[in-house]
């Protein structure tokens, strides 16, 4: 029996709206079966503002801590300061968002009763447990004279710089380690998308907050981060097959296109005017921050859309079965 000829219940394509009219427009798309077009896997119950927001803020914090340490080592206090403060602020908001998203926020501490390497959320909680105090100490060092406790501030800066990249990249595993097609199918590329996005966000924060004389590293990181993210997204979209549609359509499509445009705008601004105009640097920085946020919300929405339509679950699995049994 030819799979492409299979239709059951007339719900080919898995869409309930206008399914009769769609039949013709689906020429060229192999058809598939589903149970009344209902999803096979469940959409994440996570609130976009909490969790996509956390993906953005966590990345921003993690990469900012690394950039801040570099700024401190290279005697750029004007660059280090906004990055340290931004990292502490972003990770504080992240923790609030994570607890807020729980169905039982009062039971947050149940996360700390186990350590499970099979659960990226468990690993992430432990990374945050180490990172957040370090980022806090680094920021405190900027805000108040710590006196004899000064070494703690330095230790915080160093610790946050080393743990920050883990904070920025583990969240890719967090969302990829699901049955959500747009996320899981992209699990190879997602960490690179995420650290690229985090780097350009941190660079954006640096451009926004640092004096012109000190922002050169932020400008360079903006270019590296944005290009890495762009390349990783392209690779992901090529490798995930049909699921790539979810990154191009609907709300996710709008957000992903906005992310790309803002990112290119931010990089161009940073290269052209970031070294001579405070306004150009600030605007470029804001564009990069917005680009990173758009990308995270876009990826989040693509995941939701891919879970809603059984096509993205059934078709890749069918293709896999067909490839395994020639």
């Amino acid at each position, binding site marked *: *029996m030819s799979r492409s000829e299979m*239709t*059951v*219940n*007339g719900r080919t394509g898995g869409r309930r709206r206008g399914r009769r009219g769609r039949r013709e427009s689906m020429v060229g798309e192999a058809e598939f*079966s589903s*149970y*009344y077009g*209902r*999803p*096979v*896997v*469940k959409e*994440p*119950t996570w609130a976009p503002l909490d969790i996509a927001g956390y993906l953005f803020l966590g990345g921003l914090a993690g*990469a900012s801590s690394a950039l801040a340490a*570099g700024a401190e080592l290279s005697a750029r206090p004007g660059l280090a300061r906004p990055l340290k403060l931004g990292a502490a602020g972003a990770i504080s908001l992240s923790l609030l968002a994570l607890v807020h*998203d*729980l*169905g039982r926020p009062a*039971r*947050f501490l*149940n*996360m700390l*009763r*186990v350590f499970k*390497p*099979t*659960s*990226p959320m468990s690993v992430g*909680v432990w990374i945050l447990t180490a990172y957040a105090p370090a980022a806090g100490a680094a920021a405190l060092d900027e805000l108040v004279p710590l006196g004899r406790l000064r070494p703690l501030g330095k230790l915080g800066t160093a610790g946050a710089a*080393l743990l920050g*990249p883990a904070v*920025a*990249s*583990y969240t*890719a*595993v967090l969302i*990829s*380690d*699901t*049955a959500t097609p747009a996320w*899981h199918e992209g*699990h*190879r590329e997602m*960490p*690179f998308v995420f*650290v690229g996005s985090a*780097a350009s966000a941190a660079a954006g924060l640096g451009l926004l907050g640092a004096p012109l004389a000190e922002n*050169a*590293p932020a400008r*360079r*990181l903006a270019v*590296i981060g944005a290009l*890495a993210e762009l390349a990783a997204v392209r690779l992901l979209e090529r490798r995930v097959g049909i699921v790539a549609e979810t990154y191009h359509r609907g709300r996710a499509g709008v957000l992903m296109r906005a992310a790309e445009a803002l990112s290119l705008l931010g990089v161009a601004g940073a290269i052209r005017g970031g070294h001579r105009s405070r306004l150009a640097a600030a605007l470029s920085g804001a564009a990069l921050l917005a680009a990173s946020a758009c990308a995270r919300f876009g990826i989040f929405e693509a*995941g939701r859309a891919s*879970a809603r339509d059984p096509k993205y679950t*059934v078709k890749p*699995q*069918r293709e896999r079965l067909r490839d395994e049994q020639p």
Partner: protein
Amino acid sequence: MSPPSLLSSVRGHGDPAGDTGYAEHPPRMGFFTDTSLCIGCKACEVACKEWNRVPEDGLNFTGMSFDNTEGLSADTWRHVAFIEQRKPIAGSEANFQHTSANVIDLGLAPAPGTAPPAGTELDSDFRWLMASDVCKHCTDAACLDVCPTGALFRTEFGTVVVQEDICNGCGYCVPACPYGVIGKREEDGRVWKCTLCYDRLGQGQEPACAKACPTNSIQFGELDELRERASGRVEQLQQAGVLDARLYGHDPHDGVGGDGAFFLLLDEPEVYGLPPDPVATTRDLPRMWRNAAIAAVGLLGAVGASFAGHR
């Protein structure tokens, strides 16, 4: 590598309870749901709700045949699917073209006094597939793997159960399940799913759904014995000409290491809303961690590189 008791998905095996660390444990128990015997009475749905005190979750009209339950969720632990096809029930030919197997227009609820035109719905080439879906209690359970609190655990019977006093409603298990089984009860904040009646098993009783099933479509027992029985049944049906009969979730070498609750189906799994080739997402986890580590080091490197050069 990580402690073996935690990496259930990374290994292939047939004894999840033993691998979890139970030194002595009863045999692995499970369900064999033979959908060729299902009459769609939904006694399983009712018995499950009653026994487990699962709350009411909306009395909807879906228009999906006789299925207003819609699917498994936090508040539906057994779900009977109804599929109407233009296809003979027995003696089905193997190479049947599904193109013509569309849903029958039932012309629901004709106005009083108007009988449907004679012959329109009395097509002999009509079959009604009914199937009672349930949590698969996977050998490699992604929900259990990703749970960050340990609320989800493996019982001595090899089943997967949520501890409601531990779950903090993080919701990670919900998108992790390759079958879309487990769900979050919004007003409660926690996740819920079939426990394979863990309380009844402890008392030597069979689960409520199996107990209530009037046709023995839902069969409960030792998994090894059920698998044997199922392969005999599928052979019997094939010989009787039901060439569509096939087992689903019985194979310990599939993407979830085999289901603790498996099925005999009369069509492709996706027709019933089941994934054709489910894989526990945690199988790819080692590679994901590796790439995340490479990316993290890359980020450090990129930051370092951005300090090279003047100014």
